[in-house]
């Protein structure tokens, strides 16, 4: 009996033990357990049955977590949330393939099906991103602390799988759980820098003249990508097609390259930039960056310095040219002349292609005010010996105003009423307020003074005949205002204006002889300002032919007793 009682109690206590011990039972969530004793879906962790995807949760239910992040691209020496990075597609794929989603937003959020503040927390998700052509991609992943990216180095790759336990508990304090994944795209570009514009062997100018010869220079090197080809380009200011100039050369070594010569034939503002292609298929441009694989060049400072500039091309001003003369320039000598000048007319026997203000046997240029020979990179010299002086001040022309009184008291002056009355060489006076000459003058060497009817001043003279005075004789005309009509492009003689001289031909005026005006002569724009607008071919023979008339005598008088 005692044995039976003992067996009974032993069995009772064994069964009681078995019932209450970790062995031999299927433990529920958070129950003490031995390995393998938890119910399905739980795992004995730390002596308790827990959900292995979120081991800190006592109810074994994983809380949802949000998958979020941002997309960056390395530009201008910094990570920027700009295209093409921000529109890259981020996808999530749940490990059981029962849920996926995608986003091209930036920042992006994957909340999961509402109302949960995140995707199902018990699942891992493969998060992937597309990357723009010609870039590499890396990521940082942070759990419940979006700022951790600052302390970690991005890991190369375009996909990462979330960790549910980290989402559940890493850095978690309270609130929603989340995983922050930042994507970093790096263009695999080669680099260019130190872009320079050389105009007529001078560097650094950004405002040039139409017709100037331009050469581009830049330095090229490998960068995040391996250099494969270099380029230099000139494009319209709005980057539109067609490009004006597109220089490309294969190169893997880099260094300094210069383009061929380019001549602007139209005024305007243009973009100039360098380009570099990498073996990885990316292209960097200093400007006019379109879609990937085009990216902005890093330049010398990482932000594109020295990879881009603008050039303003201006139309040259009309200009004057002289041959065998000296010039007293009233006012300023301010002149901008293209590098490749053309003759006054292509078949002009007197002009040359020399780029000087005064060609052939040149004299001195004196400017009453400033002397400005044009752009510093390409000033136009006065002549091959370049003798000049600026700010000379007032030119003493006292004799011109006194000439009429002088000749009427000292010389034989014949008064006529019509130019046809000139039948000998000499000095003639015609009283008329305005004289128009539309036929060639008589075949005599003469000086003609046009005086007003009341003789109070010089009268005006209008020339309305092309090649006026082309008779082989020598003429000089003295008038107040001298107007050369629009149909006249060449005149012969010495033209002396005591007030204004003007010409109306839009293709310029050539004077075989000389021009003396007491005031500045306005220059007309030509259709091609690489040709001089006013061309004076000084002819000394006229002075010799008119020496008795267009002259004075000097006297030296002494009483010796």
């Amino acid at each position, binding site marked *: 009996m005692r044995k039976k009682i003992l067996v009974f109690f032993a069995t009772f206590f064994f069964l009681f033990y078995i019932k209450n011990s970790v062995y031999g039972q299927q433990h529920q969530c958070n129950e003490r357990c031995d390995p393998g004793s938890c119910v399905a879906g739980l795992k004995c962790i730390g002596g308790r049955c827990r959900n292995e995807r979120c081991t800190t949760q006592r109810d074994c239910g994983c809380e949802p977590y949000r998958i979020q992040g941002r997309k960056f691209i390395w530009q201008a020496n910094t990570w920027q949330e700009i295209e093409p990075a921000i529109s890259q597609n981020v996808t999530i794929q749940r490990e059981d393939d029962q849920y996926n989603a995608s986003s091209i937003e930036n920042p992006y959020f994957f909340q999961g099906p509402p109302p949960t503040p995140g995707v199902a927390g018990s699942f891992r998700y493969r998060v992937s991103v597309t990357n723009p052509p010609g870039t590499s991609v890396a990521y940082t992943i942070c759990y419940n602390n979006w700022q951790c990216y600052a302390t970690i180095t991005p890991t190369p790759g375009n996909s990462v799988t979330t960790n549910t336990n980290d989402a559940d508990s890493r850095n978690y304090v309270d609130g929603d759980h989340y995983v922050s994944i930042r994507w970093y795209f790096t263009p695999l570009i080669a680099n260019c820098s130190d872009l320079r514009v050389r105009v007529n062997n001078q560097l650094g100018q950004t405002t040039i003249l139409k017709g100037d010869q331009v050469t581009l220079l830049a330095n090229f090197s490998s960068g995040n990508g391996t250099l494969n080809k270099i380029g230099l380009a000139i494009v319209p200011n709005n980057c539109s097609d067609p490009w004006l100039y597109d220089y490309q050369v294969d190169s893997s070594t880099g260094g300094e390259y210069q383009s061929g010569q380019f001549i602007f034939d139209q005024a305007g503002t243009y973009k100039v930039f360098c380009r570099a292609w990498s073996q990885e298929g990316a292209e960097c441009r200093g400007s006019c960056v379109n879609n990937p694989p085009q990216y902005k060049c890093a330049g010398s400072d990482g932000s594109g310095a020295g990879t881009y500039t603008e050039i303003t091309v201006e139309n040259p001003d009309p200009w004057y040219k002289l041959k065998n003369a000296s010039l007293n320039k009233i006012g300023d000598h301010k002149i901008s002349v293209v590098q490749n000048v053309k003759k006054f007319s292509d078949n002009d026997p007197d002009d040359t292609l020399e780029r000087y203000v005064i060609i052939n046997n040149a*004299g001195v240029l004196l400017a009453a005010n400033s002397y400005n020979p044009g752009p510093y990179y390409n000033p136009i010299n006065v002549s091959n010996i370049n*003798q000049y002086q600026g700010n000379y001040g007032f030119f003493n022309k006292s004799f011109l105003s006194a000439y009429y009184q002088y000749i009427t008291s000292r010389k034989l002056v014949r008064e006529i009423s019509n130019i046809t009355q000139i039948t000998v060489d000499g000095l003639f006076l015609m009283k008329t307020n305005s004289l128009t000459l539309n036929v060639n003058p008589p075949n005599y060497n003469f000086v003609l003074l046009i005086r007003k009817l009341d003789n109070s001043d010089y009268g005006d003279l209008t020339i309305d005949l092309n090649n006026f005075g082309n008779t082989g004789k020598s003429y000089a005309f003295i008038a107040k205002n001298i107007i050369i009509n629009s149909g006249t492009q060449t005149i012969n003689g010495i033209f002396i204006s005591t007030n204004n001289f003007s010409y109306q031909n839009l293709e310029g005026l050539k004077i075989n002889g*000389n021009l*003396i005006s007491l005031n500045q002569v306005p220059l007309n724009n030509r259709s091609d300002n690489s040709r001089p607008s006013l061309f004076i071919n000084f002819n000394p023979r006229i*002075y010799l032919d008119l*020496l008795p008339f267009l002259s*004075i*005598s*000097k006297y030296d008088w002494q009483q010796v007793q």
Partner: protein
Amino acid sequence: MTGSKFNNQKGQVLLITVMILATILSIVIATSFSSMTETQLTKLEEEERKAFAAAEAVTEKALKEGSTTLSGIGEFSNYQASATVDTTTSRNFITPLLQKDEQYTLYLSTPQGAPDNPNFQQLGSPYFSGNLYICFNNAALELTLIKSDNTVSHYAVNPSGSTIIQNALSANSGATNCPDTSFNNNYLLSSVSNTKLLLVRVIGGSSKVGFHGTTDLRLQGKTIYSKATSPGGATKKIVLFQSYPQIPSDFFVTSF
């Protein structure tokens, strides 16, 4: 006694009268002498003025006619007046003072018909041939040579040590080979020949310009020596130089 007293009184009156008459006579004589002297001086001045006028007149005549005399014309009929046109040449020539921007035309050729009837439309041989020293003071010069083929050459010359014109030639300092010692700069134009004219423009200041050739310069104008003598012996002499036609720089240098 009474008669003797009366006689004494008559004698005194006579003496006083004589003394008064003597005084008056002295005054009259002195005045008359003074008047004669003044008349003589006035006459001399008048003759001098007339002699000067005669010298001027014969100078004017000589300008037109060449060497000449003046006689039998109105109030100068008793005057001896003559003018000689000097046509001798020299190696030296000095211009008048040229103001800033003025120019002087130096003839290095000979007008046809010179010296008596020069035709300045026909400049030709004989030409000056040799070295030509151009002397000046504190101004720059522009030299323009018009050659026999009507081509031109220009030279710009700065005073020594000065830059009035950029990139111009520099003169030598001093008056070496100058017409006189009043110049402080000189510039040599070597081997000048077959040149009609040399126009010298003064830039940036005023200066006389002196020329010295290694051979005689060509004639530069008329030099007239005139002399007129009055019947009373008053003599006046005048020297006049009239240059050949000068082309003013106002009409020569392109200006606009």
